[in-house]
């Protein structure tokens, strides 16, 4: 087991390394750097100024060198610019050149500097993650119990009318992407068009103070899309368990139906949904990006869109590192959890 986890962690780091290099390469392509210079310098800057702006800030170095600096395996650049100012990767604003450390990459715990937010990535990202964490917490609180209840109810009597209608509900919910349901929700519940202006169409105040009014629509939008899938998995798993031999034995013994469901079937039926829920988390990330953009909620997804559209290189790298670890960690947890929950499986 220990070796298994170790190997998985190894793969995780290798993946993160490859992935960040790809992101690094794509964001450091010449047209992207030009975009960066124009957004940071001046939108209507001349071509010569772009070249010297980039050179003064170390962007003109070869790609592997820059990547190594970001990793922290090569010393950060120190460049005396054409305007006479000395800039260095590791030199904080206002710090004398001599006092700066020579290495400052991710290995030294320095996540770099966000060119858009004008702050260290390590200061911005945790805030955004905390905001998204708050959103995800409520999404989970709505989605998981909802999906499990629907799935169990539908699966305990396969083919019944209850099953049919609940299954239809879950299919409809998986077929409605967030940008559709979000738009429909806002039109229905945040405008006066249909006379049901109950909630707010903007969640930016929820960053400070989340209330039912400003948080309900974003939470529901993400939860609905994910709910259908988990419910269907739960239903399938429940239906399978209900046809198992030991359930049949229990029923023949005369155990009451509610008791069979609650005492015998449920535990085994929930193994599959557990792994599905874990694997669903990376998928929710997608929904988070859409919903946070739609409802202007300053979380991780919002930061991703902002960083990507402004070519904020080090922020994007931070975002990718975090999402890789989220994806791979949830996979790992779901695998391990599966083993713990299901005594029949042993990993050699």
């Amino acid at each position: 087991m220990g070796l298994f986890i170790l190997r998985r962690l190894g793969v995780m780091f290798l993946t993160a390394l490859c992935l960040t290099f790809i992101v690094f390469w794509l964001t450091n392509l010449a047209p992207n750097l030009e975009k960066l210079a124009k957004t940071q310098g001046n939108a209507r800057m001349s071509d010569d100024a772009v070249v010297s702006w980039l050179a003064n800030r170390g962007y003109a170095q070869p790609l592997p060198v820059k990547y190594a600096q970001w990793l922290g395996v090569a010393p950060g650049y120190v460049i005396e610019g054409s305007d006479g100012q000395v800039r260095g990767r590791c030199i904080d604003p206002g710090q004398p050149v001599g006092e700066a450390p020579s290495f400052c990459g991710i290995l030294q715990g320095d996540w770099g500097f966000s060119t858009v937010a004008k702050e260290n990535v390590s200061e911005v990202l945790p805030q955004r993650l905390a905001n998204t964490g708050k959103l995800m917490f409520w999404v989970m609180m709505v989605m998981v119990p909802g999906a499990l209840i629907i799935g169990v109810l539908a699966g305990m009597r396969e083919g019944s009318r209850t099953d049919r209608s609940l299954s239809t509900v879950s299919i409809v919910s998986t077929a409605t992407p967030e940008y559709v349901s979000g738009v429909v929700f806002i039109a229905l519940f945040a405008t006066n068009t249909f006379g049901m202006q109950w909630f707010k169409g903007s969640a930016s105040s929820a960053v400070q103070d989340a209330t039912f009014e400003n948080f309900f629509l974003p939470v529901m939008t993400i939860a609905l899309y994910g709910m259908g899938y988990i419910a269907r998995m739960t239903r399938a798993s429940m239906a399978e368990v209900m046809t198992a031999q030991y359930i049949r034995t229990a029923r023949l013994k005369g155990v009451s139906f509610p008791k069979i469901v609650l005492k015998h079937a449920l535990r085994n039926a929930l193994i599959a949904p557990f792994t599905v829920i874990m694997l669903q988390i990376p998928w929710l990330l997608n929904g988070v990006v859409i919903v946070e953009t739609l409802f202007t909620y300053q979380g991780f997804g919002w930061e991703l869109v902002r960083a990507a559209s402004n070519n904020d290189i080090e922020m994007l790298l931070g975002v990718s590192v975090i999402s890789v670890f989220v994806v791979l960690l949830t996979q790992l947890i779901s695998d391990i959890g599966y083993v713990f929950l299901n005594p029949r499986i042993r990993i050699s």
Partner: protein
Amino acid sequence: MEPLTWTGSLGIVLNPFLGIVTVLFLVSLVAQTVGGLFAPAVTLQANPDGTLQTRGGVLGILELAMKYLLVAIVGGVAAYIVIPLFIPYGSAGIVGEISKRFLPVWIALVLTYSLSIKYKRRLGLYGKLFDSTVGMIGFGLVMFWVFTAFFVGVFDMIATHDYLSQVSGLKNKVPGVPVPEGTAGLTPHYLLGGDNLARDVFSRVVSGSVFVIAIAPLATIFAFMVGITLGLPAGYYSGRLDTTLSFIANLILAFPVILLFYLLVTPEIVLTGIPSYMAAFLFVFPLIFFGVLLNSRYYTQPAKRTAIMVPVLGILGWLYLSIINQPGTVIDFLPAWFDLFDISILVVFVSVVFVNAPTVFRIVRGLTLDLRTRDYVAAAQTRGEGAWYIMLWEILPNARGPLIVDFCLRIGYTTILLGTLGFFGLGLSSESPDWGSTINEGRKLLLVFAHPALPPAIALMSLVLGLNLLADGLREESLKD
């Protein structure tokens, strides 16, 4: 011209009727769903006269009532669709006029269904679909949009106005607004109102279907070709090949999809030519796939093989070159007369294929890992068949069930992805009527004018829902085998 109301004179009778029936239906549905939880399981009991007892009691009555209510609802909806076809313009309101516009689609759907149901026993898995209500509904929704796209795209029917022309004075006007005298168009009204640039919302939605119906399945097919061509050997040989390919697939899957789109579908990246190279790489897989497929089958008969492979690969090769060759990009070497078509949204197409292929790869690899231990594979190996023959002609056909189901789901997912791209304003022209872009356009004024954003949203949802239901129906029916 007077503005149109939603249902016109038809609604005076039909609206209250349908309203009451629907409410009753919903009430009984809830009652039954809740009641069903506590009721004892249905067991079959024989009556003394030999018939089987149906469910009695309150639930039984409810079930019966629901059946009739459902029939009434379907009848009511059908009335909205059918009656307007026989009454003059405008008297059936917006709903009636929209139904009239869709007349070719209705005819095509009725024909498809009557023919399919009549010959369903001879049609294999497709025929079996018509045994499942869910599958039929799903198929109906999908075919509705397929036919719409077909009639709009090929015959230029259905749409009432040019989807790009802007009519002064109709900016953000509500559904049913009359257009000024002398405006080109087939109806004197904007059936679903005007959008922010005074274009006809209805025409934009139906024109958008062409885009979605053309791109999504095609991109999915390409993704399947790539996934299958790489997944079969990975699963069959295992070992280092599998490890490498799986690592790459997982790498792509570990990317947040939207970040990938933001990195790939920007004008800067198009400038560098990366999408063109990716297209050149990804789109070569269908060539390989068909080449290997035919070669492994006919390599014992060289004459026949050549006779089949040369034309097939020739045409595919030409298509391939036409697709990847784009004037103004890095790959631009074909003379214009040789270049069949230009895909203006190549970059969108490539990215969607790129995102989908790894998942297909994983599915195919998993299925192959399972199927390669079967007896018929061992038999083929003993016969001395080549590895590719076994993969493509023994394993692949036996994996078709799950693959077809996944194919339907994946078209839906691709549609959602395309919409996501439009939603973030990536890659597509702002005037493009595709549903994602239209939703994105509409949402900006959503708090004030909901009508431009809702129709494309509902259209997209119904198509994806149809694909999901279809996949569900297919899965159910294929499991019965």
